[in-house]
């Protein structure tokens, strides 16, 4: 069970959030009403997708105070605390891509995977293109094609042909590119990678406890961020880490764990000199 603690917690959080949104529509609950683009928490606190708001701004829309406040709250939450936690703890597409990844591992599609020319930096190019298109088309360009919004809206308001988006992403991640959508293309993930660079919730690594079994690298959806495994006792600094905690789950040697940057800086002084140095 220990090996699935974070995975199960994530699924619970993801599903509860989706259910609250569904209840907001069908039962008029006020806990979370709207969808991931913009919602109201307890009927009063606005929450907005900062990337969508930024695209709207570039498109030339007048940004209302609700959207502005909502975007600031979300930016602060993920920017300061969670980083890409949105991707792994909230986003419904994560369930699809995790399923594709699981299928890959279970059936061994990884073994026949070919080297692909697509870089993980593609997402930052997609962000740039989305802003250029938003400017010239006069609308938030990614919001018109975003499978994240499509799937989430589908769950809350009715799916239509939205199931096709689910199948496409699943098959893309399964047969075309490992971690294709979330790890290479999704500009929202890229956006949170950028603003999550200085998050305080990070994964730390203790290379002395590590037995180099590399299980963490197998399950990690952004395994380039785990470059320090078995080499150095460094925390995961890259903003591309989604804080999904899967690496911590699978580690048999207690070599990985979450920490809050501020907390460790205090404790680290008396606990572990080496750890402290690497963080500084």
């Amino acid at each position, binding site marked *: 069970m220990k090996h699935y603690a974070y995975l199960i917690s994530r699924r619970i959080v993801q599903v509860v959030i989706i259910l609250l949104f569904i209840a*907001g*529509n*069908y*039962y*008029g609950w006020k806990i979370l*009403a*709207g*969808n991931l*683009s*913009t*919602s*109201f928490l307890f009927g009063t606190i*606005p929450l*907005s*997708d900062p990337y*969508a*708001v930024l695209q*709207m701004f570039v*498109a*030339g*829309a*007048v940004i*209302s105070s*609700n*959207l502005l406040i*909502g975007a600031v709250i979300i930016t602060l939450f993920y920017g300061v605390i969670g980083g890409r936690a949105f991707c792994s703890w909230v986003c419904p597409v994560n369930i699809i891509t995790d399923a594709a990844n699981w299928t890959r591992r279970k059936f061994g599609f990884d073994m026949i995977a070919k080297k692909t020319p697509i870089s993980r930096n593609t997402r930052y*190019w*997609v962000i*740039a*293109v989305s802003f*250029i*298109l938003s400017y*010239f*088309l*006069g*609308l*938030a*360009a990614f*919001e*018109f*094609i975003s499978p994240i*919004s*499509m799937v989430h*809206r*589908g769950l*809350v*308001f*009715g*799916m*239509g*042909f*939205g199931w*096709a*988006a689910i199948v496409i992403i699943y098959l893309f991640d399964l047969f075309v590119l490992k971690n294709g959508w979330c790890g290479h293309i999704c500009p929202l993930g890229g956006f949170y990678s950028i603003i999550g660079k200085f998050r305080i919730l990070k994964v730390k690594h203790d290379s002395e406890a590590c037995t180099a079994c590399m299980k963490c690298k197998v399950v990690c959806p952004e395994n380039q961020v785990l470059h320090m495994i078995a080499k150095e006792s460094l925390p995961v600094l890259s903003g591309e880490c989604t804080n999904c905690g899967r690496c911590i789950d699978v580690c048999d040697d207690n070599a990985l764990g979450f920490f809050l940057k501020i907390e460790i800086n205090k404790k680290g002084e008396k606990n572990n000199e080496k750890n402290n140095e690497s963080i500084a």
Partner: protein
Amino acid sequence: MQRKQKKTSSYKKPISESRRNFLSTTRNLGLALIGGLTWAAYVDEAKANKLLLRPPGALKESDFLKTCIKCGLCVEACRNRDGNIIYNDKGKRVGTKDPTLLLAKPGDNKPLGTPYFNAREIPCFMCDDIPCAVSCPSGALDIKALINKKTKKPDITKARMGLAVVHKESCIAYWGLQCDACYRACPLLGKALTIDMQMNKRTGKHAFLLPVVHSDHCTGCGLCEHACVVEKAAIFVLPIEYAEGKVGTHYVKGWDKGDQQRVKNAKKIHTIDERSKEKAVDKLNNLGDLLQ
């Protein structure tokens, strides 16, 4: 032999770091261009469907598409509005009726995620408190535009979701049958929709009861379209820009003092061409060659 050697050597020669950077940047830009153009083409097509009815207070379509963040709060407000909730005998909420507003989903062939309604299926019931527009966080539904200046309260009669249009040939009232379903359904009957009574010359003793829409009052709620008894509604709501013609500025109502104000500063313009260079009287007096 020598030539061949030369070729292979240049082929295998490692490219310099700067050239590698140049090539990779060029490739990335090219790929971004492919993606961007495809993406732009799709979005441009996807937003092209303008024949849809937006909720009350919606900005004009181009601004609406810019400003709507597709959160669906208007749709939720519509579903959970007073009077739409179904209660059981004990007064406990058991569900809701289907809302007027829908959020465009894949397959609807409408700009994805934006709210609209289909008046023939479920029209807008023109709630006094306009919950949909009140709930809009982005301003795409502009509640301020619907505030009555006197009462300072939301006034749904100010909404202009569209304009009802009558297709005479399929309207049975124009056949001479007695039908005023649309008139009875109109929430602003007598203002937005009136009955024009005319003599039926075919029978010589009956009247035509003809529905006439008045665009200065019609909100485009679609209750008329919903009520229309014929197979495919003979009265239907179109977005205003498609339902209305436009006279242009060069027609001035000579009998309307207000309209006359538009031309009070107009100056007389003389255009002289081949035919008007002579005064008309001179032209008539100058018989010229005719007398000979």
